[in-house]
């Protein structure tokens, strides 16, 4: 498939970024740059995470005790601040995923009534 146009950028729904960040951290501790990269790559470039949203989100999650952070040296020998999911964070992720599934189902029902009935 030829890539002529960059994929359409999508704006994240309010609150969705927190979920994505938590989801990303499920695979292990990561620093801010890597989180942004992973979201971008995994969404096939559709989701561009603005640093101006990412860092406030990380710090907010830390304040809510859903993640914790520590300075570590990365594989590439670069010191960076790594964020780790906490137990509370895991629970929060499950909750948010549940809500997300409900939301998707509800919106799907509206858009495509046949599917919702089945």
């Amino acid at each position, binding site marked *: 498939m030829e890539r002529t146009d960059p994929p359409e950028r999508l704006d994240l729904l309010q609150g969705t970024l927190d979920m994505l960040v938590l989801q990303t951290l499920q695979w292990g501790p990561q*620093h*801010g*740059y*890597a989180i942004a*990269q992973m979201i971008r790559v995994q969404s096939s470039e559709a989701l561009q995470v*603005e*640093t*101006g*949203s990412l*860092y*406030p*989100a990380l*710090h*907010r999650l830390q*304040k809510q005790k859903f993640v914790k952070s520590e300075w570590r040296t*990365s594989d*590439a020998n*670069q*010191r*960076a*601040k790594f964020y780790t999911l906490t137990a509370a964070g895991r629970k929060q992720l499950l909750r948010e995923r549940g809500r997300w599934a409900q939301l998707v189902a509800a919106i799907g029902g509206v858009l495509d009534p046949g599917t919702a009935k089945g």
Partner: protein
Amino acid sequence: MKLLDRILRRDRDEDLAAEIQAHLAMAERDKVEGGDDPVTARFAARKEFGNVTLVTEATRRSWGGVWRERAADVAHDIRYAIRTLRRSPGYALIVIAVLSLGISANVVVFTLFKAIALTPIPNVAGSARLGVLVARTDAGRIMPLSLPDFRELRAQGRTLHDFAGTSMEAYSLGLGTHGERVFGEMVTGNYFQVLGIHARLGRTLQPSDDVVPGGHPVVVIADRLWQDTFASDPAIVGRTIRINAHPFTIVGVAEPGFQGSIVSLRIGLFVPVMMQPQLRGIDLLSAREMPLLWGLGRPLAGSSTEAELLSAHLDAGQPARAVRQRATVIPIWRSPYGAQTYMLPAILLLAVMGMLLMLIVCANVSNLVLVRAVGRRGELAARMALGASRPRILRLLFVESVVLAIPAAAIGVVLARALGPLMGDDTVASIAPVPVGMELSADWTVVAFAVLVACASAVVFGFFPALRTSRLDLGAVMKDDLSPRGGSRSRVRNVLVIAQVAVSLLLLVGAGLVLRSLEAARTANVGFDPRHVASASIDLTPNGYDAARGREFYQRLLEAIRRQPGVESAALTGVLPLTLVDSNSVQTDVEGYAPRRDEDMRFLFNRVSPGYFATLRIGLIAGRDFRRSDSVDTQPVAIVNETMARRFWRTPEGALGQRVHLEEGGRWRTVVGVVRDIKYARVTEDPRPALYRPFEQSYVAAMTLHVRSSDQERALLPRIRSAVQSLDPNLPILNAGMLADQIRIALTVFAMAADTLLAFGLIAVLLTALGTFGLVSYAAKQSTHEIGIRIAIGANRGALVRGFLGRGLRLGAVGAACGVAAAALVTSWLSTLLYGVTPIDGVSFAGASAIVLTTVALASLVPAWRASRTDPIAALRHR
């Protein structure tokens, strides 16, 4: 704790910065690995990341509450403001000095206002909200209530919450060897409970001291009297003193600071009202027609209407009362019992003047801030270009204003403490015939007021500069050089100078009017001649004279005095003229005259001996003076003044032989003489009816002796003293002095207002001069280059001076015109304080205009002349 907080925050800031740096480094490395050259990679990484500052700000916002961030910002602004101001200490000092001058003037006025209106009765919580229960006649005269009326109203309980009764009198306090005149309150037993005043020693008066007429010879003394007269004797309770010659036992000393309930008067004694018959010699306790007490207490909601309802009842019970009265509650600031009713208008005037002065101060400071803002346009434009929002910049400017205003508030309070005594307490106390005491200390309300004024002025003087800044055209400023040259449009500054000129003219006109009133009042024809008249008051009550012996004493005293060499005439009078207080008035019937239902038939009266009118040089228009033969045994007679004669009998001659009846009993009195009007209580009063009775036919024990002498004034007083003491060595002489000095109290309010207004006016002119000087200097400095060129090509230096002078004078003329117009509009409000001048007084207006214009001319001339001395070479090279 705060420090820890700050350290933690600093750590977090550094942590965040490192985090972002790491992000950038990793992004850069990825790009290098992807094949970019290092420089491109660095820029690409930065571009991808976005605005580091904005990200930092956004992240920091997620840390804590918004208020915390704001507080940190403001703290930062304050630190920054202090740092910048420290770089221009001259500017900061001038601004603070000018501001503190204005603030101190306002603080002084506020302190006076507080003493009279906010805390009228020291030590009583919420005393400003107290209500005063009085009787009001249909003619609007306010009078105390009789004790029976008072008791009825209290039993009804619908006017005030539990209220106390009080009245004020001067008592003679006998201390064994000598007498002292002390003001006292005659109070009901619940007085101290209602006011919430405790005893410092012993006890206060109790309701149980208010039961049997004549049965409670107890007294509570004020703390100050205890200290001054009784040397803080710790064993004072239980001691017996003589008040009006009757023995009273001191049962307690009231708490320190409490000086009674008469606003700004120092009361020394508190006696139960049940002792009234002993103190005054006549029993008025059960007389329904004798005004005795007024009530004092906390008003119920809507108590005024309740009292009006009650009045119907009062009248219903009193069909025979001569004048219809209603019981009514008035707020304490309108009560005639104390200094408030004649002080408040003056204080209000001062407050308005103070605010005007503050306006000038603000205009002046605004000017200074503007000049500085021009120099800072570069800095501010840079801030805005870097993304500072407009509100953020305005906040910075406002914080700078407040940083200047707060120290000014502090200095203002201190300055006011130093200035306060000059126009308050002591000045009045030194001339007043009564002990004046006002609570003029600075408490938190004063400090709060100063801070409020400071912050309000910061808003006002920061307004124009901020307005200008918010209109800043970034491009123009950034392209242009950052020097002040671009800011030469000075319309705002012109307006500020015009405003200053106008307001200071207004203040000076006010000062001029009051000064001219004072002068007019000083030289006014008061109807009598106080010069060369000595005056001494004597009270025979404490020394146990009865009426017959008293008459004889006074007769012998007059004879002894008249025998003295140099004495032209001597006489006795019941009241002194021009003491600001309306002396006794009496309900009067005029034979053959039917007063209208609401006509005020209470007239001033005085009791005088033969020779009184000659001694004071009050002209006799018709009939005769009193004679020695007008005694108790002969026909009762009266002398009326011209106004009264013309009101009831059309001509002075027509009054002779007519008869009047005075309320407090006795027979009809025949009018035997008509005298000219004098000013009875105030210089500014309108003519009003007055009556005189012969002293012999209306004896009281306390009289004042007037002696007219061609002698040296100083020699007169000791001779009067020795004449009195040769008759009775134990008799105290009260208030001995020259009449001219004693009546000066009548001018006190004028004098105080005039002094203060003049001070305000002069400060205003000074500030205006400073403002004009600043404006013209600035204009001259800005055109140094131009002036240099003009001088170099041969311009006339005189013409240059004229140019700048003209500029200053044009502004001055416009300001003066505005000021005259404004003054013409507002001076009519002053009319209650004016005497002998119209509100549109030519002399005041012309004088004020002359002073202001001369000041403006001088203030422009100096910088103009300096500009014309510019050395063209230096001016041109400087650029």
